[in-house]
């Protein structure tokens, strides 16, 4: 394997980590929809932390190695339309995913407060935070942008 083969391989491994992390985070988001207890919320937060780490590794790793490959490979250029589209979508995905992280910190803070107050049972307020429409919206926008990047990478319009 040449150096570029390794770069390409790690580029796609980072991409798989990113998309895998997103799939994992969606499983947690769906599980949180029917969760109204502090202990369960904190339990799912532990799983979400693994997903978030995968996303945080995947986002910069994929873009950095992708741009590096675009510079190294003679048939691609960083100013190609499909590469610029991918960079723009990556920026949208990053902003949306980080915003969703912020939204999903709210139920965690509430669950910690409930636990500290000695209440680990059901909480109407916690249930509403776990069903956060804003968190869901930003996670959906971020995921859609990543799916569009995958489609862009495979179909390479104009390449």
């Amino acid at each position, binding site marked *: 394997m040449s150096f570029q083969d390794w770069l390409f391989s790690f580029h796609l491994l980072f991409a798989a980590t990113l998309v895998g992390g997103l799939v994992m985070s969606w499983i947690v988001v769906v599980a949180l929809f029917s969760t109204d207890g502090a202990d369960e919320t904190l*339990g799912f937060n532990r799983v979400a932390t693994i997903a978030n780490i995968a996303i945080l590794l995947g986002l910069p790793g994929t873009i950095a190695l992708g741009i590096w490959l675009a510079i190294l*490979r003679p048939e691609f250029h960083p100013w190609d339309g499909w590469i610029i589209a991918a960079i723009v979508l990556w920026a949208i995905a990053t902003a949306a995913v980080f915003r969703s992280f912020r939204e999903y910190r709210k139920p965690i803070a509430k669950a910690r407060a409930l636990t500290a107050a000695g209440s680990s049972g059901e909480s109407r307020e916690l249930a509403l935070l776990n069903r956060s429409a804003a968190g869901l919206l930003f996670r959906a926008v971020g995921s859609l942008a990543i799916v569009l990047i995958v489609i862009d990478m495979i179909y390479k319009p104009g390449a």
Partner: protein
Amino acid sequence: MPEVLAAIRPAGQDFPVLLHIVGATVVFGALLASVGSLALARGQIRMFRIGYFSLLFVALPGWILMRLAGEWVYREQGWNDVPAQLQDPTWLRIGFGVADWGGLLFLVALAIGGVAVVRMRSGKSGAGLLKVTMSIAVVLAVGYVGAVWAMTGKPNYGTASPVQAATTNAAATAVTVTAREFAFTLSKTSVPAGEVVFTVVNNGKIAHNFWIDGKATPLISPGESTTLRLSLDGGRFMYVCTVPGHAAAGMKGFLTVR
């Protein structure tokens, strides 16, 4: 010399490749979710269930999609229509091995986890069985990382057969091979038996190579050329571009040696 393979492929293969990748990443993500939920459950029944249901309702459909789309890509790329020496290279065997043996292991994990969930519903302990399920899921996740590496890096592929020395002599027949997307044009399609020197010119926009009678050029970048020298006895020899999918798209043909 850039050797990255299959970053661009014939258009007809894009959709099955997309489905294959979506299926594979769904499986990978669901396996991670399952392992995370089972490992971090700390006795919470609901997290045990989420860990198992991630496998059953997310990873299993993802595996089916990945496997079916993989078979579709295999046929679209014409792997069953290339010379025997080129069939199923190492990276492809790794991919199918992880998918198929991993699929069997996956079914075992589902069965064990299913027993555990049923036991938990009836008030018995199923945590031990779910730990077995989790361990299998960890093995599968590691296997998928290896498969992604093999499928994307394609180790030991494309450069395995060295280019022969290109010194020409009077007895050798010269054949110019022009490669483009997705066809070869040969200056001669029939040559006398003996030494043949192929000068392969890539007039396309992406990298190609030229394989004949077990020998191949390295990948040739657009605008570059290389030579391949070999001795051929009488017969009909298939030539192909070994970049996945290129032969199926038309980069193949036969050279007659008299």
